[in-house]
């Protein structure tokens, strides 16, 4: 029973990183911009979180600072890809290299020491006493409620039940038509690429302030890329993105349990699971159900810059 609780708790904890970053990526991709810089943004967010709490021991401040740093880098990325309309793949790869390289450079002086302050667990009265589920769901850090309840429902409502959300999706599907209808394509793309990047920065801070409370070189370890893949698998829907992230949380936590219980599998092989799982998830569903492709299709104008003045 303790094992089950442990697995569940780690699933939610580990899935949170991916869920937050994937929701950020959903925002950018829904308005038609692929941000392959998620990995770099998370690295910058992670080191910002650590550096901020080292100066002022407040995890909330560290998280907020990471959101701001993510947004700043997002604005640079949006300037290049939306305003100048440079190649999104190249700019995204560049952002990953910049973010990872810069974070590792800044992080040298923080390496190895635990984060000065972390998000503490909050016991929800009564609910946390439920057997098995209680400790896993209702005795977690406060960010998790934001990640699993507030954000996905809020973003789902925004995207699919408001006029503004309809405009966002129109910008991602057919920017020329959206433009003709008077929707400010460039502005909407700029705003949501920035907002999405802020969430990726936040995901990095979540990593160092709630999940693995310390900075180490290369600690993001491909989570940004996994988040980008999850978005495809989740059909560009925020609630699906969170559910898929939970699935990956589960895979990660199985790896942890395996290491803790000395399963006869070497630790590096257990660490491979999330990457191999992502690849399997990208291939198998499309193989099995051809219909999935149409249902979960990407926004039609994804990755394509919009030129109003050039025909």
């Amino acid at each position, binding site marked *: 029973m303790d094992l089950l609780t442990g697995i569940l708790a780690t699933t939610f904890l580990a899935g949170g990183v991916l869920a937050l970053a994937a929701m950020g990526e959903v925002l950018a991709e829904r308005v038609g911009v692929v941000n392959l810089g998620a990995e770099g943004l998370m690295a910058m967010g992670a080191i910002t979180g650590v550096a901020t709490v080292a100066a002022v021991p407040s995890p909330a401040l560290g998280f907020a600072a990471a959101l701001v740093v993510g947004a700043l880098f997002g604005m640079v990325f949006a300037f290049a890809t939306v305003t100048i309309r*440079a190649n999104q793949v190249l700019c995204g790869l*560049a952002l990953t290299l910049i973010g990872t390289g810069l974070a590792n450079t800044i992080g040298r002086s923080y390496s190895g020491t635990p984060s000065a302050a972390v998000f503490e667990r909050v016991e929800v009265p009564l609910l946390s006493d439920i057997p098995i589920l209680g400790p896993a769901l209702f005795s977690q850090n406060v960010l998790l409620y934001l990640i699993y309840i507030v954000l996905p429902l809020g973003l789902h409502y925004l995207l699919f039940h408001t006029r503004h959300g309809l405009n966002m999706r129109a910008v991602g599907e057919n920017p020329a038509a959206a433009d003709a209808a008077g929707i400010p394509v460039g502005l909407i793309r700029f705003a949501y690429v920035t907002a999405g990047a802020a969430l990726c920065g936040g995901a990095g801070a979540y990593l160092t302030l709630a999940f693995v409370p310390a900075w180490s070189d290369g600690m993001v370890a491909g989570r940004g890329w996994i988040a980008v893949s999850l978005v495809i698998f989740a059909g560009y829907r925020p609630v699906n993105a969170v559910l898929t992230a939970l699935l990956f949380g589960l895979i990660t936590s199985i790896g942890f349990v395996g290491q803790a219980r000395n399963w006869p599998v*070497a630790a590096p092989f257990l660490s491979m699971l999330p990457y191999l799982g992502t*690849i399997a998830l990208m291939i198998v569903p499309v193989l099995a159900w051809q219909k999935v492709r149409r249902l979960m299709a990407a926004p039609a104008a994804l990755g394509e810059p919009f030129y109003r003045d*050039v025909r």
Partner: protein
Amino acid sequence: MLQGLRLQRLPSVQPGIALAMRALAIAIVVLAASIALLVAGEDPIALGAQLVSATFSSTFGMEDFGLLVIPLILTGLSVAVGQQIGIWNIGAEGQFLVGAFAATAVGLFVPGPAWLILPLIIAAGALGGVVWILVPTLARAFVGVNELITTLLLNFVAALLVYYVSTGPWRDRVGMSNSSTPRITVEMPEFWGLIHWGLPIAILMALAAAAILAFSRWGYEVRLSGSNPSAAAYAGIAVRRHIITVMLLSGLIAGVAGAFELAGTVHRLQGGISNNFGYLGIMVAVLARNSCVGVIFTGILMAFILNSGIILQTQGITTSAVLAMTGAILFLTAIGDELAHYRILRAGSTRA
């Protein structure tokens, strides 16, 4: 004055401007790095002079530099070959690692004379690279799964695999280190000083790839499939088959790079053997605008940048800082490439 001018976007990049933009991108990043060094209390000009003299005024410096050129030309070539058909192979890092891994397996466990083992090592590296890109290739060709992400994710798996064997079952039980395998006995013959024959072979591979792409029917079909897949398919070209061969070739080149690095430079498998060569290869290919001949020169340029980072390590600059600088150059290059689509026209000009 400015009101008399307007911009016109051309459908293709103007090569001269794109080249100038690359030079400008590098200049801006070097300037920014110099300012950062100045703020940190270093003297960037003295450091620059130190770099040039450390690299070019001694045999030792030239050897270090030349050894970096080999993997960078090859990983750059790997990415550039994929780009001919519009494929992003971001997994050269992983294919490099598995190439080195397979080469190590032959080097450690297959006994025999050097003239036989050395070709086997390189063949094993090539095979390792091909195996590592096989699943992304099939997924891309038959199911349409984005190869960029699948090739990239396998980099992490490859790194874990190499970490596992070099600290676990294959670790050096005799030597001091327990994070690498024993030294393999066979090595690449030397070409100039410590620089092994990988250098001329890498250059030949780049020239051969360029020639095949430019002059063969296969190369023509590949380039056409890359620039307009539906037109190519309509013309009866087997686009899917070309995607498969090009991707496997891309993986093969990266795998050979790993085998060269192992048998020519490092001689033992260890965790950091790939040294970001795969990621820097993207940069090499982009700077060369995916020209297979161009990667020879941009590979040399990238080697100089990387070598500078390694020399400056005592000044507190790390390979991570080099990675960040590379990213910044890539970012500005992407912007420059878009700007190279435009030309300035006078209002009322008849050249519309």
